[in-house]
């Protein structure tokens, strides 16, 4: 899932300084799961904003809502009327969510309340780990299901550097050396031979990337007699 964290409150407050009618919009998907942008966070942030403005004797209206998935145009379309009552939308979605809203609701500015950080997973409660760099050329089949592109500080794809010590990364001792993890896993799988293979260097993709599924695209005209 997409991992995101809430921006410092001061930053959010400053972003919203000139607005009197603010809609805080959460997202019911990834950011709810990573405890950053679900209904509970929306309520807390909205309340905090109202209190902060009250202290400054600055009137404000803060609305609250949660969109099931902000990166889904149809869900975003559904909030258009409600959003029309506000001067600004503060999205508690990931970057995709913010942009989807901006794309669909053109006349109201959309501001991010979150910093979208990475594609990751929870490794314990309230702690998340980046595990996928979305490089576009997956080699997990050769590495025992552990991604060196993301989890090696140097993104080395053909074995470790010389700096790994006692199974820990030389760049940050808080992290295990991912090639050690890959090695251990392949031993368990009895598939060490995989390490003899060579992964080809990755071509750096040009942003923005686009994925097209020709097989699934809706055809403009139906083909008769097929």
């Amino acid at each position: 899932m997409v991992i995101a964290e809430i921006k410092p409150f001061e930053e959010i407050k400053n972003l919203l300084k000139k607005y009197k009618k603010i809609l805080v919009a959460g997202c019911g998907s990834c950011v709810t799961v990573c405890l950053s942008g679900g209904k509970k966070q929306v309520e807390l942030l909205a309340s905090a904003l109202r209190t902060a403005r009250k202290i400054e004797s600055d009137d404000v209206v803060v609305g609250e809502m949660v969109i099931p998935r902000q990166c889904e145009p149809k869900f975003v379309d559904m909030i258009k009327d409600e959003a029309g009552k506000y001067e600004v939308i503060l999205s508690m979605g990931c970057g995709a969510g913010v942009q989807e809203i901006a794309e669909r609701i053109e006349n109201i500015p959309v501001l991010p309340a979150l910093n979208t950080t990475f594609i990751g997973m929870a490794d314990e409660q309230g702690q998340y780990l980046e595990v996928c760099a979305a490089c576009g050329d997956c080699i997990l089949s050769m590495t025992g299901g552990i991604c060196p592109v993301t989890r090696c500080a140097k993104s080395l794809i053909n074995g470790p550097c010389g700096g790994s010590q006692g199974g820990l990364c030389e760049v940050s001792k808080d992290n295990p050396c991912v090639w050690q993890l890959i090695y251990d896993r392949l031993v368990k799988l009895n598939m060490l031979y995989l390490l003899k293979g060579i992964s080809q260097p990755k071509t750096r993709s040009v942003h923005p990337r686009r994925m097209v599924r020709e097989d699934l695209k809706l055809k403009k005209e139906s083909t008769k007699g097929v």
Partner: protein
Amino acid sequence: MSISAMPPCQAACPIYTDVRGYVSAISRGDVETAIGIIRQVNPFPSVCGRICIRACESACRRGQIDEPIAIAALKRFAADQTKDLKSSFKRGPFYNEKVAVIGGGPSGLTAAHDLTLLGYNVTVFEAHKELGGMLSRGIPEYRLPKSAVKTDIDYILSMGIEVKTGMVLGRDFSIDELLKDYQAVFLALGSERSIFPKCKGIEMPGIITAVEFLKQVSEGHRPYLGESVVVVGGGHTAVDAARTCIRLGSHDVTVIYRRTVKEMPAGKGEVDEAEHEGVKFKFLTAPVEFIGNGRVEKVRCVKMQLSHSSGSKRQSFLPVKDSEFDINTDAVILAIGYNPKTDSIEEVEIISGKKGTIVVKDELGTTNIKGVFAGGDVVSGPQSVIHAIASGKKAADAIHRYLRNLPPKEIEEPVVLRPLDERIVSLIIKAVRQKMPMLPTEERIKSFKEVQLGFTWDQAILCAQRCLNCGAGAVISEDCAACFNCVLVCPYGVATAGEEKAQIDISQCQACGICASECPASAIDVKLETREVSRKKLKKAVETAKKEELKDFSINFYCQYEQPTGPSEKKKGTYTVGKPCMARVSVYQLIQPFEEGSKAVEIHKCGHKKDCRFKGCEKWIIEHIERAQKMLKDIGIDADSVKVIYEDDK
């Protein structure tokens, strides 16, 4: 398990009383709500609070941990504390039809009560001078004071029910005559005719039926039967008669019962109380002959033993050969059972059963005469008061449906919460059951004063707080984002990951509410105190504060388990909100009052330094406080504006 599954106490009650609901109200000191809940289904709370057979307590899941909740005693407490409360009931639309209820016992009066509420004109015909049936005539005052019966009956009559006493069916009127004026008739004649054992000498002077004996006592007579009395039987009436003899001055009172204490309908508790007062019990003993010279002098008995004959499932007891022995006595009281007395009814078309019971066609009490229904002991034979009440309720509903031409009620068996898993049982903190205060034995045996004195406020609240609120736990909505945070935080391990969403087994959930406060999607709510209720309480406190236009006010949360009726001293500018455990004060509730102008939010006197009700709640209280403090700091408010105040800190 379905989230609407019934707590076992409620399912065990013949009238499905919302036990959890009223016990929970008492735990907050709210007896008015409690009695309201009870009265929704039961017009006899003072009576049932004293003499109910308490099927609910046998089913209570607290019994898996230590002892069941003293449910009946709590019902009595609610009834006693509210007996001066003005009645408030909503009657249904008024109908023109008149209904006659024959018999002013619990079944008849319950039917009259329910039918009046439904909107009918009801007249109760009672053969005796006094209403109440066996409640007034059959149960001694030390167990059920007349005042308690009167409280309930007065309440029922205050609804506007016509009563005609001294009217005997078959003597003063007939069913046919009634049917000319009344559109429906309910026969609740009771069952007061004693059964006699088939023994020689039964007609001898000195032998009296328990019904007759107790009736005399209830009328204010004080018959002294002699120094020694033998009571035959094992039911409540037998024990009642024996304990009454003690109070009337007989010193040698023996109850003989043909089975063992295990089979005794009166139950171990009552036997213990009676023994305490000096009553002797001879189990596995049956009378065979009453012997005397013009007056009973001894009872010839025979020893009984459990028959091991195969084939029959029910345990039967047979006499032991050559085991006869005599007990010398001055009098004998017979309490082996009763049959209804229906032979005086002229209407031959009413089908009667073998023992004088009225035969009904269905559960609703429909008889073979159109518009005539029957219920209570006259149909079932002698049963407990709660069964009589249940029967009266069914009859009222059946009569309403008959008169309004409605389809019969669909009867659904309730889905019941399953027992607690052993693992959960081991995680629940034990708490002893409150002992009912009793009249000292010396005083008891000299008078008919009520033996059980009733709980004090403190006892009632402590007792009610032991309720596990079965089935009032966490419920997950469609909004679940499947983050499974609840699975990580549940102190009881009840929340689990389902195939698509999180799952919480309502039968095992302890309603601590920690999952709800940690759910990022606000998809979990706790039935014990829903989010809506919880927020309303906070809103009310804040609104009161604002109305009083105080510049500086603060919100104090207090634990309802710690201070059930709220903090005793009220500080100026402080507004209090009770919660069922302080771990249920969410971060939002800690910071939201500042939005409204509160200067401080405190969690007061949380008991988590001592034994707390919920496992691990203290961790979450601290967690919430710290998160709220961080947020306040960000907002620009002193972080210490939110804190926990311990008792020792004061």
